């Protein structure tokens, strides 16, 4: 029994890789087979992620001693080989990405998958990159998984083709290629001075550096931080995001909701590993706090100034990133637990929101145009035009589709702006409560600024979304959109998941607080990865 269970940590990387390869085998015309394969693979990933979560939290019998699982690839002992590390944070991110992916995949099977080729394999490769980035315990390996997920995301941004996507996609690709080069410089600098790429060993070695070596390391870490901030869409490094997310196909934009959080994850991971050695600027402290506030402000202005719903959703993603950065930069460590809760809730809600927007705007001309263009580009117009055009699309029209859409839209607005009764409110409330509770250490100004930024960005969201919502939903000129269960289901499921998160706020918050505690216990992480290190065997 335990024999295969101890190989569980590698499955989130292997499963999607295998699925992506197998998905290339059946021809594009065998939709049923391919859909079944993709769904099975994603479901299996969700199952594995949930088991890992249970084990990391001690609910299930773990196949490894202690809280943190270390999987040495190929059996090479940690400082020499590459390791995968499963702790509470990695496990919860795995579950989050698998759940979001399952919803987005189901949604795209109804229609969007057919807007271009090789959607399903690219989707699986994106998942592989995501899972790998969350699991890896090696700096260079992190770069490789970043590249895997980025390469897949380049393909997905362009899914469906069309001028708008190619234009936005090109900007997105250039920014990320440049960021990758900076990542390489950072990794090389860090390796050059510390002589290791293993993240746990890195945390130990840094303490022994001094003089100009330490300066070089700080430079490397600084560059690394900048790369994570680009991925996390921190101001002023985020101008690519709204147009790229707005132009991407809706299910793609829905999974992309978690891509910015990979940058946040990287920041948090390195900030906690380097906390004992006085981490350089981007990883914490005032610098990150004000950067987060600026990001919230930029996102809020964008939310208010935009006329298109998809772009509003993109700016809301920026606001949520900014909130997380500000929370991590806040004095003390008590905000980390609530921030993680907020992260999960906001990712699920943004994912659902991108889907709901597309369904609600269906039948209004803009999105129909876009789809027509993509069908033209792939030469499907000739024989399938009548059956493939969205407005004539078959399938059961859900009665009262408008009522469902209105309800879903309304729930998403409440979730994203942080109004009761959903989990968005619980997250923001916990963040502000934690910020108020720490004042002895934190400057009063910070608490006020943080609270104000959270509340004002929420208010701006309500204003913008109600204004645009009125225009979309109370438009008497338009036909009622026709939905399929396959499309309505995933969006509803994500909203329900957020509701469950709100009702289970107690246990969930306990879990996230435990996550934060174990994150800041750097010694436990290092000890798990390098068991010999405790005895001072190095050097």
């Amino acid at each position: 029994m335990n024999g295969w269970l101890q190989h569980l940590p590698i499955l989130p990387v292997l499963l999607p890789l295998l699925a992506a390869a197998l998905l290339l085998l059946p021809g594009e015309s065998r939709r049923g087979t391919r859909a079944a394969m993709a769904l099975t693979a994603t479901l299996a990933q969700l199952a594995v992620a949930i088991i890992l979560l249970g084990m990391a939290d001690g609910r299930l019998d773990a196949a490894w001693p202690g809280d943190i699982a270390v999987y040495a690839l190929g059996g090479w002992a940690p400082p020499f080989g590459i390791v995968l590390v499963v702790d509470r944070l990695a496990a919860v991110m795995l579950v989050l990405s698998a759940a979001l992916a399952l919803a987005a995949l189901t949604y795209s099977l109804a229609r969007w998958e057919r807007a271009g080729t090789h959607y399903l394999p690219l989707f699986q490769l994106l998942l592989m990159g995501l899972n790998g980035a969350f699991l890896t315990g090696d700096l260079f390996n992190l770069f490789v998984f970043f590249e895997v997920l980025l390469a897949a995301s380049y393909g997905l941004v362009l899914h469906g083709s069309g001028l708008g996507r190619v234009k936005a996609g090109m900007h997105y690709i250039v920014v990320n290629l440049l960021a990758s080069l900076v990542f390489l410089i950072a990794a090389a600098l860090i390796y050059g001075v510390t002589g290791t790429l293993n993240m746990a060993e890195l945390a130990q070695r840094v303490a022994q550096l001094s003089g100009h070596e330490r300066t070089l390391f700080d430079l490397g870490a600084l560059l690394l931080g900048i790369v994570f901030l680009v991925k996390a869409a921190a101001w002023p490094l985020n101008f690519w995001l709204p147009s790229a997310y707005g132009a991407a196909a809706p299910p793609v934009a829905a999974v992309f909701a978690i891509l910015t959080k990979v940058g946040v994850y990287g920041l948090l991971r390195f900030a906690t590993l380097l906390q004992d050695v006085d981490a350089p600027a981007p990883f914490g402290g005032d610098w990150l706090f004000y950067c987060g506030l600026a990001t919230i402000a930029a996102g809020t202005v964008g939310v208010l100034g935009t006329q298109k719903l998809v772009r509003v959703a993109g700016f809301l993603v920026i606001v949520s990133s900014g909130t997380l950065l500000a929370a991590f930069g806040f004095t003390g460590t008590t905000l980390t637990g609530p921030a993680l809760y907020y992260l999960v809730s906001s990712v699920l809600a943004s994912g659902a929101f991108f889907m709901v927007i597309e369904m609600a705007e269906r039948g209004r001309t803009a999105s129909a145009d876009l789809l027509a263009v993509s069908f033209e580009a792939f030469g499907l117009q000739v024989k399938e035009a009548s059956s493939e055009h969205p407005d004539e699309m078959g399938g059961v029209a859900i009665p009262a589709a408008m009522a469902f859409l209105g309800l879903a839209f309304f729930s998403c607005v409440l979730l994203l702006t942080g109004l009761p009764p959903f989990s968005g409110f619980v997250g923001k409330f916990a963040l502000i409560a934690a910020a108020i509770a720490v004042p002895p250490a934190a400057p009063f100004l910070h608490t006020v600024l943080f609270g104000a930024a959270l509340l004002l960005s929420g208010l701006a969201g309500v204003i913008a979304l109600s204004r645009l919502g009125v225009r979309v939903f109370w438009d008497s000129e338009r036909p009622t959109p026709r939905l399929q269960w396959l499309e309505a289901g995933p969006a509803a499921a994500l909203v329900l998941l957020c509701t469950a998160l709100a009702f289970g706020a107690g246990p969930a918050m306990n879990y996230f607080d435990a996550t934060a505690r174990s994150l800041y216990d750097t010694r436990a992480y290092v000890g798990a990865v390098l068991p010999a290190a405790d005895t001072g065997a190095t050097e």
Partner: protein
Amino acid sequence: MEVVLALAIGTLAGSGIYLLLRPRTFQLIMGLSLLGYAVNLFIFGMGRLQTGAPPVIDAVRGSDPALYADPVPQALVLTAIVIGFATTALFLVVLLASRGLSGTDHVDGREAENP
């Protein structure tokens, strides 16, 4: 040797950044490639410069690490080259698609209005 390598990296990176800031997609891809070369050389340099030192241990030389070059940066460079190659090829496709769809090679997909 250090000076030559540093100058080479600096020249490549400088030209790369200049080209990146130009408005044509072809200049962009050349800039990214040049920057890629600069970064690869930089990673290589992080393994310390040595001449005539192989990265793989052989029986004749013995096991003294001072006789060998650091193999890790070389492996990293190899990975970086492969990844850079793939992303450049992908970007080339996007570039051509953009040229085909918009009829211009400007990065914004349309020509800037002349004053």
